[in-house]
């Protein structure tokens, strides 16, 4: 699996499902980098076949619409889209 880990402050398990071509996903990554949060991300469009299907199934558990970016925090909380205020508040 193509999971990329970014080092930073530990604020729980942060998983970002993104698309490599998406502007809002890029803004979300940049915000997490700015906040210095440790997180993992997967660019779902770069996955092929079954691997992509498996990740999409995982995303749909948290976000049935399967749109991007989808950020899952501690396997429970989900922030969909580049919600700058929500993200800042979450990691404040």
């Amino acid at each position, binding site marked *: 699996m193509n999971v990329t880990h970014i080092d930073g402050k530990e604020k729980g398990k942060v998983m970002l499902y993104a*698309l*490599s*071509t998406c*502007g809002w996903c890029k803004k979300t990554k940049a915000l997490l980098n700015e906040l210095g949060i440790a997180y993992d991300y997967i660019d779902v*469009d770069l996955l092929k076949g079954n691997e992509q299907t498996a990740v999409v199934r995982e995303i749909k558990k948290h976000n049935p619409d399967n*749109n*991007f970016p989808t950020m899952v925090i501690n396997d429970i909380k989900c922030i969909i*889209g*580049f919600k700058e205020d929500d993200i800042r508040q979450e990691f404040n």
Partner: protein
Amino acid sequence: MPDVSSIEVEQLYGELRAEAEAGGYHLNPDQAMTRQLLNGLLVNEKRYGYPSCPCRLATGNKDEDLDIICPCDYRDPDLDEYNACYCSLYVSRAAAEGKAKIGSIPERRPPREKRLKTKTEKKAPTLTSLPLPVWRCKVCGYLCARDGPPEVCPICKAKRDRFERFI
């Protein structure tokens, strides 16, 4: 992922900007964001064979992705409601002039199951059961079927208030 050069991005930028402005549409004034999105469109064109929305996951099956080929089916209603399309490549006049703020918006595209259902259930409409109202530009006669008239007539550039409900 396919390589896209900055020359290709600039060329597409120029073409799309001219096309958009000529049709009464506007590209996102945030040039860095716009360049990223154009880069994404070019990547998608190379890997799928068509420029699908950079902010949506394409299947690679053109028939299934037709509605998200840029400009997508959802651009105009999103411009009306949120001042920007889903990826924000296109924005309303107010947003282009900095008078409206844009952001990440909800997905208007129906889920796959619903899209497939609508496709198979669609019947040929009769004049009394049209799925959308038809708007007429009183200046040039341009007709369009959509929820509301466009911001600017793409043919003669007349403003929205020159449109009338035709059917």
